[in-house]
């Protein structure tokens, strides 16, 4: 037998109490992992943004367009590598609940700017050739069972009319941080239809995405772009993609702050649950600890014994909680349409955080009982009656 065995036997002394404590910790760790995953999903767009991309939008609001003529002027600024542009198309597919991001994009430049969208060359060729072709993300294709050659009918709203897009390409997101639920079609096709139906809206661009050669030039180039269109009909606001994405997320900030806060409240709860169990156990064993000291166990032996017991419980609870996190997050993403949280996965950092929290809590919960066991004199401990 080793002291380790005594830790185990102590931890299992009250099987029901220990099981409930482990379960409590597991549920809290799971809730923590889940909340953190939701929070990181919100920020995924921000996290995924590249340092070498700038976004230029209408200074008044994101919903007002910019003229296509800006493209060439921006391209002439030193340090600009590629200029691409997109429009938010929206529209209704089947019904309003079938939400996913639909963009009209200048495909060739857009793929240069977004190398994280990976398209097989033959599909790209087919996509490029056909004017009303579209490209969908692999996750979106899976969700709606879209296949190459399928037609996606969309009822326009921002851009009225009936629109039929033929799927010609399916892109793979480069990694888990990349949104695999977007749909792109040719900006030229949108413009062609506008020219016919609503000539006043021809040549409208939603926003420009600029790839720059050196991320350090971001501030300077942004400044130059905005300077270029100062006092024109459509003034611009250029910022890093990160700032742009953050602005997007900002609206929901309060919820996120709350969720964030909650996830740390949960850690406090784990601490109380385990702390309570440890204090009860240590109190009941006051006399035993005095006996161990009498036999020759030192303060550091008792420290190991109690901390070890606390760690055993917290590790079991933490491990169980992490195991539960996966199915819970999995189930959540089954019931919630992928396009709501395009990027929804458990980040390694979440696991690390939840795991270390459980460990740290294990240590902290043991502090008070340890102090009590070490401080109580043998004589008082032996005379102790529960």
């Amino acid at each position, binding site marked *: 037998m080793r002291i380790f065995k005594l830790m185990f036997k102590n931890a299992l002394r009250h099987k029901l109490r220990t099981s409930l404590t482990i379960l409590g910790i597991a549920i809290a760790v799971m809730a923590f992992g889940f909340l953190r995953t939701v929070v990181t999903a919100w920020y995924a767009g921000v996290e995924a943004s590249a340092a070498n991309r700038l976004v230029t939008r209408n200074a008044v609001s994101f919903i007002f367009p910019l003229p296509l003529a800006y493209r060439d002027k921006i391209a002439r600024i030193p340090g600009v590598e590629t200029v691409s542009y997109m429009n938010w198309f929206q529209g209704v597919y089947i019904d309003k609940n079938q939400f996913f991001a639909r963009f009209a994009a200048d495909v060739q430049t857009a793929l240069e700017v977004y190398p994280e969208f990976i398209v097989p060359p033959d599909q790209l060729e087919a996509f490029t050739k056909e004017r009303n072709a579209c490209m969908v993300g692999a996750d979106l294709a899976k969700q709606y069972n879209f296949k190459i050659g399928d037609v996606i009918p969309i009822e326009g709203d921002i851009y009225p009319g009936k629109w039929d897009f033929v799927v010609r390409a399916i892109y793979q997101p480069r990694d888990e941080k990349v949104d695999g639920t977007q749909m792109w079609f040719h900006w030229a096709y949108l413009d062609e239809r506008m020219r016919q139906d609503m000539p006043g809206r021809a040549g409208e661009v939603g926003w420009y995405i600029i790839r720059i050669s050196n991320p350090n030039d971001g501030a300077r180039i942004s400044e130059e772009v905005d300077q270029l269109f100062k006092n024109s009909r459509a003034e611009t606001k250029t910022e890093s993609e990160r700032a742009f994405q953050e602005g997007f997320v900002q609206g929901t900030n309060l919820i996120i702050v709350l969720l964030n806060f909650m996830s740390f409240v949960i850690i406090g709860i784990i601490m109380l649950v385990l702390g309570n169990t440890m204090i009860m156990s240590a109190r009941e064993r006051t006399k*035993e600890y005095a006996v161990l000291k009498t036999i020759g166990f030192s303060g550091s032996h008792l420290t190991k014994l109690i901390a070890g017991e606390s760690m055993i419980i917290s590790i079991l609870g933490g491990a169980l909680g992490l195991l539960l996190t996966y199915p819970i997050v999995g189930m959540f993403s089954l019931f919630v349409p992928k396009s709501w949280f395009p990027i929804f996965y458990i980040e390694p950092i979440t696991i690390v955080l939840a795991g270390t929290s459980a460990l740290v809590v294990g240590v902290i919960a043991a502090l008070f009982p340890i102090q009590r066991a070490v401080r109580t004199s043998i004589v008082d401990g032996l005379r102790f009656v529960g």
Partner: protein
Amino acid sequence: MANSIIQVENVSKAYRRDTFDIPVLNNISLSVSEGDFLGLMGPSGSGKTTLLNLVAGIDRPSKGRVVVGGTDIGTLSETALAKWRATHVGFIFQFYNLIPVLTAYENVELPLLLTSLSKAERKKHVEFALQVVGLADRMYHYPKQLSGGQEQRVAIARAIATDPTLLVADEPTGDLDKQSAEEILTLLERLNKEFKKTIVMVTHDPRAAEKAHTVRHLDKGELK
């Protein structure tokens, strides 16, 4: 006395309760020679347990010196004192004080975990100690599966596992029936005679005191 193992010199002990001191032992001197079997008697509250605790190094005197086996235990730090107890003293309590989640074997092994003995060596010691107390066949029983007398014998096995020179027992038969008490006393006698353990035993029981070579009486903190 040349070969005295315990020397208690002018020891006083008072417990502090809130703001006032409760005097328990009053200027006591006592010498126990090696191989002695000393019985300590006296009315309840007279300070027997307190004196025993001082001799065993689990408490410190307010005044005076306690020297055991040449070591002035008042000079040792807490950790050093714990080490000293582990090697020099075996304890036997009235209520056995076994760890309920450990088997008889594991309870006896407990003090050996603090030594550098290998697993195999510890096994030898444990088996030997349990054999001495006549419980070799109960090694894997838990305390609650044993009778009071058997529990006390496991406790004695635990006390002798590290082969200490001094055994202290605080009313070891206080919670036992006549028959079991008799067995425990015979066992202690044997440990004293055969294994040359010096024993200090607190007791209320005159029959227990009969087994002792010397009997001292404590009354109101004074030794008679």
